[in-house]
């Protein structure tokens, strides 16, 4: 079975107004528009968010050699205690 790989996207959700976008996971989609729609259906089925970002995993550069993966970030209620933008690793970029 041969096929082209559908790009991987990292998904960030703003849970409520006043909170930063938080990494919630990833998904596959051929383009940004579909990635955004898929993210809405996959990661906000239970009204988990008011705003979504999708970023091509391949466009992310990670800084930390130790803590690389932001695959499933700590829960959104912690975001304001760690105000620095959560670095998303490139651990997934080679996929």
């Amino acid at each position, binding site marked *: 079975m041969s096929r082209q790989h559908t790009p991987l996207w990292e998904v960030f959700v703003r849970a409520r107004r006043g909170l930063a976008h938080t990494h919630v996971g990833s998904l596959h989609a051929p383009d940004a528009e579909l990635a955004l729609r898929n993210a809405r259906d*996959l990661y906000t089925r239970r009204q988990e968010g008011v705003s979504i970002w999708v970023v091509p995993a391949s466009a992310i550069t990670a800084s930390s050699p130790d803590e690389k*993966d932001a695959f499933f970030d700590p829960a959104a209620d912690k975001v304001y205690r760690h105000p620095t933008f959560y670095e998303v690793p490139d651990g997934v970029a080679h996929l």
Partner: protein
Amino acid sequence: MYGNDFPGEDAPGGLLGEVEAAEAALRAAAERGRAAAEPGSDLAAYFAEVVDADQKIEPRDWMPEAYRRTLIRQIAQHAHSEIIGMQPEGNWISRAPSLKRKAILLAKVQDEAGHGLYLYAAAETLGVSRDELVDLLLDGRQKYSSIFNYPTLSWADVGAIGWLVDGAAIVNQVPLCRCSYGPYARAMIRVCKEESFHQRQGYEILHTLAHGTAAQKAMAQDSVDRWWYPSLAMFGPPDGDSTHSAQSMAWKIKRFSNDELRQRFVDMCVGQAEALGLRLPDPELRWNDERQAYDFTQPDYDELMRVIKGNGPCNRQRMEHRRRAHSEGAWVREAAAAYAAKRAVKEKEKVAA
């Protein structure tokens, strides 16, 4: 089928409480310092130290190759199980006997697709692509939980799957929220939280049937009779025959054995069955005061092996269904890729102009 282990201490609030406790433990462990904060020259020692400290291994950390392979296999099989597991229940969406039940069932089957995707994403952090894993499933080189090779023959089966199959899955999954591999543990926390409604809806269906007409009650009992032993078999072979257990336990991928989890499941179900007014189909089922647990009849492990090998009632049907959906969707996926490529070219031209 899923890895089996347990939280170390009893958490309040039932299974959901245990999930929350696991989440809190995950945060607490991350806050704790270790003797060596950064990996030194001895990567294996660093790995062991992180696992011993109940902290999480993350995707680009060094890990033993066998640890990586074990996790890929287990997470992929778990993901496949969610995707194939949509079929037996999906079989009743069109015939759900009330609009409310139809909505609940559709949402539940949809959740399972979502859980499959969370899990594929977790597996991908280990350096394997979802496409590869899907191919392994479609080629029959990776398995899914054998429970989904049994047919759903009545509406009551939707209830029995929710109560018994999801119940057994949750007993397996809650401990995985403490798995040593970070992405898997975090995926399981999300899955378990969302699944809390699945088991309850199944139980409610059976409760309604068991307190309904004589025909409804008979339908419910027949369903429990058929699903009880396959559900017990979901915990895998008895400990003596389990091939992967010891190493998985050392790596904290699992912490408790198949038999321990099976016992826990039986002990949970007995009271729930009484409240339903339904009978568990085991004449040997009785409280053992000495063991402080129920004695029960083991499932037929020869049957389990036959089903795992591909000769259950629905193996062929489930695989054929998945293969057909995949192959019939190929032209759509190709179209989306072609459209994206065209758009990318147009964007580039715009930038250049």
